[in-house]
């Protein structure tokens, strides 16, 4: 493993004030290395999503620092964060968040049009095995297909980081595996640093490293010596 892509130092996030104050993150310190695939596990409200959102430049921290390479995200303003998301980060969400009025191909092109050195939409769709469904609208695709389009869209700009929030949460095991295979393949072929949030403990087996969240802290960290392929995962 090489230099860390992300460094978080004593990161805190507090929602609300006074009596209703909720400490979503309570001093998280960690590094994320290049080309690493990390799975975040933990119960609801443990702070995983908040952590991911701050990493992705979607949310502001209350305290501490986060660095993306040399860029201090916690010191960025709104337009710098927009720029950061545009140039460096790919997102995959539980509910796909495809634009219903654009076809699969167009959903990918939406991102490639504004990226610096993207792959073509066709290449991105090929990576998730969806070339034949390129001109279908989201309403004409299955859940797994929609999520693969979302992944193609996320990776088309060749991001340094791929952030996935419950990417298989809405899928059955069979399609879930296909989606994980896509993520794994991208991580290996493109060397994209990948952070995956999941409730599904089985998925941790495909990661290089697993972080266990509890009450806004990283309670435990484990490195997988023997990674499994997605189709070997015990769902």
């Amino acid at each position, binding site marked *: 493993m090489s230099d860390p892509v992300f460094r978080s130092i004593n990161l805190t996030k507090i929602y609300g004030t006074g009596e209703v104050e909720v400490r979503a993150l309570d001093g998280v310190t960690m590094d994320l290395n290049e080309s690493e695939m990390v799975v975040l596990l933990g119960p609801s409200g443990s702070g995983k999503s908040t952590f991911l959102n701050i990493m992705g430049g979607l949310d502001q921290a209350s305290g501490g620092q986060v660095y993306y390479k040399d860029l201090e995200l916690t010191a960025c303003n709104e337009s710098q964060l927009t720029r950061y998301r545009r140039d460096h980060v790919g997102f995959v969400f539980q509910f796909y968040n495809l634009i219903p009025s654009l076809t699969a191909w167009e959903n990918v092109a939406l991102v490639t049009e504004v990226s610096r050195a993207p792959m073509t939409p066709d290449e991105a769709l090929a990576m998730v095995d969806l070339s034949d469904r390129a*001109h279908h609208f989201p309403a004409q695709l299955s859940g797994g297909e929609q999520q693969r389009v979302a992944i193609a869209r996320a990776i088309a700009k060749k991001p340094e980081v791929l952030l996935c929030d419950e990417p298989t949460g809405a899928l059955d095991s069979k399609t879930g595996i296909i989606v994980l295979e896509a993520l794994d393949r991208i991580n290996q072929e493109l060397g994209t640093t990948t952070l995956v949030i999941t409730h599904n403990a089985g998925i941790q087996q495909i990661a290089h490293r697993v972080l266990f969240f509890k009450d806004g802290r990283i309670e435990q960290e484990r490195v997988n010596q023997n990674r499994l392929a997605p189709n070997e995962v015990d769902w």
Partner: protein
Amino acid sequence: MAMLDRKLSRDLVRLWAQGLAIALVMACGVATIIISVGAYRSLEETRAAFYDRYRFANIFASAKRVPESLKPEIARIPAVGSVEMRIVKPVLLDMRAMQEPASALVVSLPQHRQSRVNRLYLRLGRLPSSRGRDEVAIAERFAKAHNLRPGDRFDVIMNSRKRSLKIVGIVLSPEYIYAIGPGDMVPDDRRFAVIYMSQKVLHGIFDMQGVANDIAITTLRNADESMIIERLDQLLRPYGGQGAHGRKDQMSHAFLDAELQQLSGMSKVIPPIFLFVSAFLVNMILSRLITLERQQIGLLKALGYGGWAVGWHYAKFVVIIALVGLVIGAACGYWLGRELTQLYAKFFSFPFLIFKQNADLYLLAGGITVAAALLGTVKSIRSIGKLTPAVAMQPPSPVAYKSLLATRFHSLHLFSQLTTMALRHLFRWPFRLLLTSCGTALSTALLVTAMFTYDSVDFMIDTIFFRADRQDATISFASDKSQRAIEDVLHLPGVIRAEPFRVTPVKLRNQHREVRLSIFGSRPGTRLNRVLDKDLQPINLPPNGIVLSQRVAEKLRLRPGDGVEIEFLEKHGSLSSVPFVHSGSGYATEFGVAQTVASATLPAVVGVAQNFVGLTANMSLQGLNRLMGDGRQISGARILIDRDQQPQLYRAIKSMPAIASIALQGLSYQKFRDTIEENIAIMNRVYVALAVIMAFGVIYNSARIQLSERARELASLRVFGFTRAEVSRVLLTELAIIILLAQPLGWVLGYAFSWGVLKGFQSDLFRVPLVVHTSTFATASLIVLLAAALSALIVRRRINQLDLVSVLKTRE
């Protein structure tokens, strides 16, 4: 409070901005109903009360000299109520503060008793008595314009002599609610007066002992007016009767009628537009609300609420918005209606004002508004009833889109993906797109309708004052004179050019159709007053024949080849049968007229007339004189004046007994312009406000709905790294397309509305041409674009506030 009502109140608080925008559009509908119907009723009621209490005549007639002994015979005509025989004469006033002469009508008042017809409302002082030979009562507006009070004096030239008259009373008459001086197009209080003197005094002044020249009659209920007019004409014929007429041909009454007609037209056109748009907006917001609250609706039903209960819950949401609109609209309508009615009172001379605002009007407006609102929501509310709880609690299936172009064009990629998003979303709901565009188009149309009047009136003024009637002044003699009198006019100081004319009242008849008007006879090739054809080119009046204005031709349903009959009212018994000859121009209202008097057949002539004011007929002076068979006579002259010698000319005219009145073109023009522009300016402000509210209501709501439908998509775009400006562009592109599509439609609708407005405004008095300049269309669109930009800015702020995290976490 029931829990559902509590939910309702919170929904209202949450959606207050959209609700208010809709309520305001409804308020416009309500306000316009109340203003137009209210003003119509107030004006009609006031007029009716004034007519009734002050015994406004039903039938009017004038003659040269009628012996007062004819009165019992007139009174014996069946269904005649009261008869009043009067002296009514045009006179010149010499007001000290005014260089130019003013004109007046002097009307006689009976001695020792009140008038039985056309009674006066006494505002100040008393009526003139027969003992005071110089006593006069004057119309209130003239008194106000000159700051005159009882006890003041002014000079009048009556029957060749200047007299100083003492004001004893300030009065108003139902006969002159709208009083226009000779040659004027709108009332000019400074230059025209109606003055009242004792009949006995006027007998002496005009040498008319025992005779009158004006008859006013009230009739009994259900009287046969045309029969009375016919009998009256028979009785008056030997005395130079000029043809009796009913109220519809009485100037003041006709003007008020035209005004009322316009108001009633407004109440039929404008409120429905607003109610239609608000129904659409309500539909839009409610169906969106129901889509968003699908799961809540399912839950409510699962909890045991019936379809009706849930439906009523949403209906109440709409009813409350409608009620807010009703309250705002009623308050504005009441206030504006009062203002408008008062404006009318100022424009017309009413002694009192009945501001008619019955509860039924508000009930009507409220009923219509709530009904329109509910009508807009029927579909959405019915969908609630149909939703089963299990289905409702599932998220709705994703919206299916279609490609706008055939698949083979996919590789073209004409637009960026952001633009494609905007376009597909827009055309996914074509009906909504159509309605939103229509709503926006209606705003543009309203603005065009408000502003075109400037163009039309400009054109009309240009035509009348700079192409047709180019004289500086028109002098009218007290009675017809020999043509040699033109020499006297030419010798007046400062007169550069004088063109004689003759005018005579006639009835033109085509079978049972009849029009009362005056035929003007002028010399061919006149340079000052010109008769224009439809292309506004001067017509050279040929020696024989008649040129009718379009309105007259339409009223008489005359076509080339038809016959027309002319009855000269001042020369009784002179009836001419006139066949038409085709003009060959192909224009339906261009006529060839061949004249026959007695047994003489005269050759035919072609005539066209583009005339915007009054009913007119023109002939050559020679032809008219020949028809009338009383020698070469003239009634007055149109003159061109050397401005430097104007004061001398005015002085000379004031001392010339032969001149009954002088109409000053420049002042008429100015007054006309000022009055019209003042009226248009007021109307304009109201229309612009209405149009802006409508544009804002439609565009703001439509943008908010789009934002609500697409919050998730737009947030996703922000997550992918699109800037706020780029994300806003998606929504703003849609808005821009809606607004741009709406403009041409708005122009067409605006042109059609304008046409409708003019159609409603058209009367025998005015015929305003429809002229809309390109700049008017552009200005209307610009205002709508500004209103749109404002709503876009507000929505843009909302886009900036999108909560990226929460939007992405939830499933829609």
